[in-house]
């Protein structure tokens, strides 16, 4: 389909027109092409200027800022190149190392759990359930709501003594229910659970949309061959969704490195003993609480590199899939 369209595009677009074939001059554009080019520039102009000012320029600055020593109060002349000086202190910085460790832990738990759960829910909703629409709606509702609002709901749900979750656990016979957000041991995992709850509906609808593209005949013939539900899920649905699962995993990984909202709302100062700190929190802390520009920018560069590498992997895989 794509090939077909691009052939059409080439066929119809200016450079292949009859007049051009007679006089194949490369850099002299026909009247029509010139008009199209001007229209093109005019169409992108407002967007391009805005992106230049609000995206491209700050992006470049943010990467450069990691390598300079500078106090913005003293003006630009005061800025000097610092090489890797800003990065040298990072390895011994407790907040940074805890944050990096927590982000990795976050990814290791969040990604597989939310993806497997999303796959199972989508698989069941796709084939085995009545009232698919209201159930899909209920599962997706957390994702649409702002993390800040639901963070406060979960904060109270998690309340160690008398909170609903622990009350339920105790009535089920759990003697010493976890302290959730109040304990350095469980603060991070509590935030991860809430994040999985918040996002699983989103990954689910991506899978569900992709599953609708799988032909029902495949399942029918599998059923004739005697394959049960679980078998056809594992042997048909999962392999057919291969590329979607890969991309959602990458998306979830990137999301788990960008996590911040729930950390800054559910616990104060990144939890007891900063046990729930993450990289974005560390950037925020050094930049806006400590005015330590060098450190904040160095951590930002580290975070950028992590996300850059993941995005590169994604681009590579995408190329492989589409070619």
């Amino acid at each position: 389909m794509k090939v077909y369209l691009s052939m059409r595009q080439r066929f119809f677009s200016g450079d292949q027109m009859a007049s051009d074939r007679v006089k194949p001059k490369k850099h002299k554009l026909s009247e029509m092409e010139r008009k199209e080019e001007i229209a093109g520039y005019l169409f992108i102009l407002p967007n391009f200027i805005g992106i230049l000012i609000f995206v491209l320029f700050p992006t470049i600055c943010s990467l450069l800022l990691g390598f300079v020593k500078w106090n913005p109060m003293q003006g630009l002349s005061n800025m000097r190149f610092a090489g890797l000086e800003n990065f040298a202190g990072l390895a011994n910085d407790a907040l940074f190392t805890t944050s990096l460790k927590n982000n990795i832990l976050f990814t290791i738990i969040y990604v597989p759990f939310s993806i497997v759960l999303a796959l199972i829910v989508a698989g069941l909703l796709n084939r085995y359930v009545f009232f698919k629409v209201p159930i899909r709606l209920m599962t997706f509702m957390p994702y649409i709501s702002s993390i800040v609002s639901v963070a406060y709901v979960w904060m109270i749900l998690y309340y160690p003594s008398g909170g609903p979750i622990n009350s339920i656990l105790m009535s089920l016979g759990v003697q010493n229910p976890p302290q959730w957000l109040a304990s350095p041991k469980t603060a991070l995992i509590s935030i991860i659970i809430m994040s999985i709850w918040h996002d699983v509906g989103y990954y689910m609808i991506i899978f569900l949309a992709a599953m609708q593209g799988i032909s029902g005949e495949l399942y029918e013939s599998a059923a004739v061959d005697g394959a049960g539900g679980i078998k056809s899920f594992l042997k048909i649905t999962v392999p057919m969704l291969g590329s979607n699962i890969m991309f959602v995993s990458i998306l979830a990984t990137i999301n788990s490195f960008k996590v911040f909202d729930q950390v800054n709302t559910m616990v104060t100062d990144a939890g007891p003993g900063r046990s729930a700190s993450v990289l974005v929190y560390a950037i925020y802390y050094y930049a806006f609480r400590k005015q330590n520009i060098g450190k904040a920018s160095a951590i930002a560069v580290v975070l950028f590199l992590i996300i850059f590498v993941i995005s590169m992997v994604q681009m590579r895989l995408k190329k492989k899939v589409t070619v």
Partner: protein
Amino acid sequence: MKYKTRHLIGRITMTAVMTAFGMLCIFPFIWMISTSFKNEVDVMEFPIRIIPKVINTGNYAKVWFESNFPAYYLNSIKVTALTLIGDVCITTCAAYAFARLKFRGKEIIFASYLATMMVPVQVMLLPKYIYFNWMGINNTHWALILPGIFNCFNTFLMRGFFESIPFEITEAAKIDGAGQFRTFIQVVLPLAKSGLTTLVLFSFSWCWNDYINPLIFINSDRLFTLTIGLQRFQESSTTHYALIMAGATVSLLPLIVLFLFAQRYFIESFANVGIKG
């Protein structure tokens, strides 16, 4: 026949299981609404009572009349509306050119857009703060609106939608003598309705729920949007959980109501974003 009944029983059980799962997903919302109507002493009661003994609407009165919530609301509406209008006008134009017009430098410009998409907002907070300070837009709503309007990801998303419209249609318009702008407004845009819905709903919920940008760029109470307003409200009401839940309900309500009415479009849009992005 036997297969059919077994199948039916399986379906009914699965429906029950999934309904239970769905209920689990919305339990925090139900609990939030129920608690917002309770007296403070009843918040932690067990067994959990979904319908409160006494319906207390005092929390809502407090949220609405004794705090700045009405102002937070107006701020959120203003920021979201201006961002959306600007975004739709400017992004769709650019995306149209990237998808369907030929001009020199297009590939390089678009590649630079794609490159910046790899740098997340979270990485740019500090340079943006210094830069916005220098521009004089810190602590104004422009610091939220302008970066919201100029968005590489949305351009990329809309370009995908415009590319999927058959080229014969625009060629026909061109032969009929329509200029680029008319072709765009009258021919291409109406055909990209699902793309536009996606753009609007996605940007809307992103903008409405944005937390990190207002946290950093806005610092006076009268300019707060709902997310930051709710945080300040939570900090000032300490352990008045029923009151905090009323605040949370009020802040969630518009989006949830909109979602319930347009859920099909929301879900389609977010699936589109997930698959194309």
